[in-house]
């Protein structure tokens, strides 16, 4: 009955997520999409890339999806991350939760993205004109 989609992909299609989360017992669906933001301060990012430790990342994403599904009795859950080079405005992550009521889907969706950012072994590298930086690597 429960549906969990956990994926690492090259390109995220944001149009498909609602269909994946649609469920006859769901009154509320909450989706978060994280996208590459244009830098407005400091140096300009020329390009950007995500790298994943794929086996482990999928395992952690699966754990997060399963925990949320149990905790908030979700009817469907999606956790999908993109890897490889990304452009400004391109979606890099989409998480979503489908539940009978809206409280549960909002809380679950927030948990999904917060926990993904904390635990899933995926790394973002920003390329500037003269250097590149692994985000969050240094204090």
């Amino acid at each position, binding site marked *: 009955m429960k549906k969990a989609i956990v994926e690492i992909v090259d390109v995220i299609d944001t149009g498909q997520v609602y269909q994946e989360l649609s469920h006859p017992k769901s009154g509320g669906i909450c989706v978060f999409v*994280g996208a590459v933001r244009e830098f407005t301060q400091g140096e300009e990012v020329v390009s950007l890339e*995500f*790298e*994943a*430790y794929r*086996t*482990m*990342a999928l*395992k952690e994403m699966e754990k997060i999806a399963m925990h949320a599904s149990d905790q908030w009795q979700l009817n469907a859950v999606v956790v999908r*991350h993109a890897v490889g080079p990304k452009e400004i405005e391109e979606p*890099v*992550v989409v998480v979503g939760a489908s539940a009978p009521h809206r409280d549960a889907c909002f809380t679950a969706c927030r948990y999904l*993205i917060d926990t*993904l*950012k*904390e*635990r*899933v*072994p*995926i*790394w*973002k*590298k920003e390329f500037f004109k003269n250097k590149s930086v*692994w*985000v*969050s*690597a*240094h*204090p």
Partner: protein
Amino acid sequence: MEVLLFGIAKDIVGKSLLRLDTSENLPTSVKELKQTLVSSFPQFGKLSSLAVAVNSEYAEDDVSLKQGDEIAIIPPVSGG
């Protein structure tokens, strides 16, 4: 013993797979592996955090390392 490297860990070591020589004393725990890394590549000591995964699960310092384990260095993650 082979150690997978990702993100900045790969840049610090200069490759994506680190082979620890069996002629030396191999680390027997996660803690010892971290110590070996930091002493060989001091830049590991400057990261916001340094985690190790054993068989694709986060492993605490006291976890022991066995032949055939898939070991990976997990520098601070920045997905999402």
